[in-house]
C-alpha cells in the first residue's frame, strides 16, 4: 500500500510545494517510509535544473551504508568534472543535504549521453533534469521531507507526489518515488500497485538502451513511457499502451512540463479519487488528500477501470 497525490492549476501559479505537502501528509498512513515530490516550479526556462544525489540517507528504517561527508565531497568533484567535460556550465549550485544537490546548468546537447556520464560516478544518481521539474525524495514523511528541502517555498502550476510503504525493494532514496522519465527532461511518475511482468519488460527495455537505477517495479512505468515517447508516441498514447504492456494492479500519475495524467489498470484494483473543476484537478489515493486542500463540500469520483486522462496547463 502506498499513497499518491497530484494536482494541476490550469490557469495560475500557486504555492504548489505547500499544497502537495498537505495532500501527502494526509496519506502518511498509507506509506510512512519515504516521501517524494515532483514539483513543476516557476522558472525562466533558460537553464536546466538538475537534482542529484551522491549517497543515501542512513536515517531510521534505511538499509543504506553510512558514509563520511568527505566521500560525498569526492563524488561531487567527479560530477563537477564530468559536467565540465560535457561542456555544461554550472550557473548555480546548492547543497541541500550532505548527499543531495540542486544545480542550475547551461547545456544544449543529448540528455542520454549527459546522464550516462554524470551517473558514471559511484553512487551518483540524477533524480531529475528539467527546465521546470524539481524532483525531491527522501526518507521520512511529507512534512519532514518538505522541511528538510524547504519545499513550501516553491511555487508552480502542478505536482505529483508519493508516500511510500516499501514492499518489494529497500527503504532508500533510489527506490523512492517519483521516478524521472529518463532521458526526457521534465517527465516524472508516481505509482501505487504492483507490476508482475517487471523483469520481462526491464530486460526488453535495457536491450533498447534504457537505464534502470533501482529494482523498484514502479521505475518501469517511467522507463516504459519514456521509451514509447522516444519512438514518437504522445504521452497519452504511451499511457494507453501501458494498460496492455504492463501486467499487474496499478494506478499511476505522470507529469510533464505542461501536463498531468493518470492511468488505472483494467481491474481497477488500486484506489483513486478525483476532483475536477474548470481550473483545478486534484487527485489522490483517498479523498482525505483532496480534502486537505479543499475542505469545502465538493463533487469527487472514482475513475473507472482502464481509464486514462491527461490535463494541460
Amino acid at each position, binding site marked *: 500500500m502506498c499513497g499518491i497525490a497530484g494536482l494541476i492549476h490550469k490557469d495560475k501559479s500557486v504555492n504548489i510545494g505547500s499544497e502537495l505537502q498537505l495532500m501527502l501528509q494526509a496519506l502518511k498512513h498509507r506509506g510512512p517510509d519515504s516521501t517524494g515530490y515532483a514539483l513543476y516550479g516557476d522558472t525562466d526556462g533558460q537553464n536546466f535544473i538538475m537534482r542529484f544525489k551522491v549517497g543515501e540517507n542512513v536515517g531510521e528504517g534505511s538499509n543504506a551504508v553510512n558514509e563520511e561527508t568527505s566521500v560525498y565531497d569526492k563524488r561531487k568533484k567527479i560530477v563537477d568534472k564530468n559536467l565540465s567535460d560535457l561542456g555544461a556550465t554550472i550557473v548555480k549550485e546548492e547543497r541541500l543535504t550532505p548527499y543531495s544537490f540542486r544545480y542550475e546548468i547551461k547545456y544544449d546537447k543529448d540528455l542520454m549521453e549527459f546522464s550516462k556520464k554524470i551517473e558514471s560516478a559511484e553512487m551518483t544518481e540524477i533524480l531529475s533534469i528539467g527546465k521546470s521539474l524539481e524532483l525531491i525524495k527522501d526518507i521520512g514523511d511529507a512534512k519532514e521531507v518538505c522541511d528538510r528541502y524547504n519545499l513550501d517555498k516553491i511555487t508552480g502550476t502542478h505536482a505529483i507526489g508519493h508516500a511510500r510503504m516499501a514492499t518489494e525493494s529497500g527503504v532508500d532514496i533510489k527506490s523512492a518515488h517519483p521516478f524521472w522519465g529518463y532521458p526526457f527532461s521534465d517527465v516524472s511518475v508516481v505509482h501505487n500497485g504492483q507490476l508482475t511482468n517487471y523483469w520481462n519488460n526491464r530486460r526488453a527495455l535495457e536491450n533498447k538502451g534504457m537505464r534502470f537505477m533501482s529494482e523498484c517495479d514502479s521505475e518501469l512505468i517511467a522507463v516504459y513511457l519514456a521509451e514509447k515517447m522516444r519512438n514518437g508516441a504522445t504521452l497519452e498514447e504511451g499511457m494507453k499502451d501501458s494498460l496492455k504492456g504492463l501486467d499487474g494492479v496499478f494506478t499511476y500519475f505522470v507529469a510533464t512540463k505542461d501536463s498531468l495524467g493518470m492511468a488505472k489498470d483494467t481491474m481497477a484494483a488500486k484506489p483513486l*479519487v478525483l476532483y475536477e473543476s474548470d481550473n483545478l484537478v486534484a487527485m489522490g489515493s483517498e479523498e482525505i488528500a483532496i480534502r486537505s486542500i479543499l475542505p469545502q463540500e465538493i463533487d469527487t*469520483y472514482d475513475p473507472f477501470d482502464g481509464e486514462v486522462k491527461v490535463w494541460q496547463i
Partner: protein
Amino acid sequence: MANLKTTGKKSKAQSMGMHTEVLTGRTQQKFFNPDEAENFYYFGTHDVDFNKRTELDVKDMDAPDANKKIDSLMSEGYGTIVIKNPQGKHSLGVGILNKLNLIFEGSLGYFGVGSCDGPNVRINGRVGWSCAQNLMAGKVVIEKNAGSSFGAAIRGGDLICKGSVGARTGIDMKGGTIIVGGDAGAFTGFMMQRGRIIVLGNVGINLGDSMYDGTIFIGGKIGSFGSDAVTSDLTSSDKDWLKRKLKVAEIGENFDVSKMTKIVAGKKLWNYDNLEPTEKKGAI
C-alpha cells in the same frame, strides 16, 4: 463455555504435539427463533425516538471518537442524528445495530456505515471504497458517487447510490438490493451469492463474474460478461418489482425497465443443487 478435557489416547497430530485436548460440550451456535423474538436482545442496541434530533460536528474528531459519540447520543434516545463536516473521514457510522435516522452532511471516506443492521442513512455527498459492507438491514442512500466494492458482502437492506460507482459493486453479496443511478465499473456482482443489483447506466467488463446466484439488472451497455454470467428473460414480475423498487428508492421512477437486461448465474462452473443449506443435512 465448552469443557476442555485431556484424553489418554493420542492421535497422530496429538503425538506430534500439535494439540493435546479435545473440545466437548454444548454447541456455542445460537439459532434465532421467531417465536422468541420479543425476548431477543441484540447487544449494543438502543431504543431511540426518531423525533428526538441532534447535530454532531465531527470536523475535529477522529473516527473512533465520532462513532463513540454517535453511540452515546443513541443511548440518550436520539433517533435522528445529523453529522456535520465528515470531510471524507474513514469508517464513520459503523456498527449501528438499531433503528436510527442518520444523515451525513458531506462525504465519507472508506468503509463508511459498515456492518450496520437497521439504520436509515442518507449521505449528502460521496462515499469511498466498501461503503455499507456487511449491511444486514436498513436503507443507505448516497446522493453523489461511490467508490469500489460498494456494498461488499451485504446480507440485506437497500443500498442506493444516485451517482456512479466504482469496480466490484456487490462483491460477495448474500442478500439485499443495490441500486445505482449512474454507471458501474468492472466486475460488478463479482462472486455474488444472493440478492439483486440494479444499474441504470452502463457497466464495465466482467459483469457477474463467478456469480453463484442472485440477479443483476442493467439499463445501459455491458462491457463484457464474466465467467458463468448469462442473460435471462425479463418477466412481468421482474418489471413490476423493478418499478416498485426504483420508486421507493427515489431514483429512476420514470426509467423504462422493459429495456433492461437481466443477468443470472449460468451455474456451469460449480456443483449446484436446488437444496437450501438447511435441507442439505437431511439429504446427506
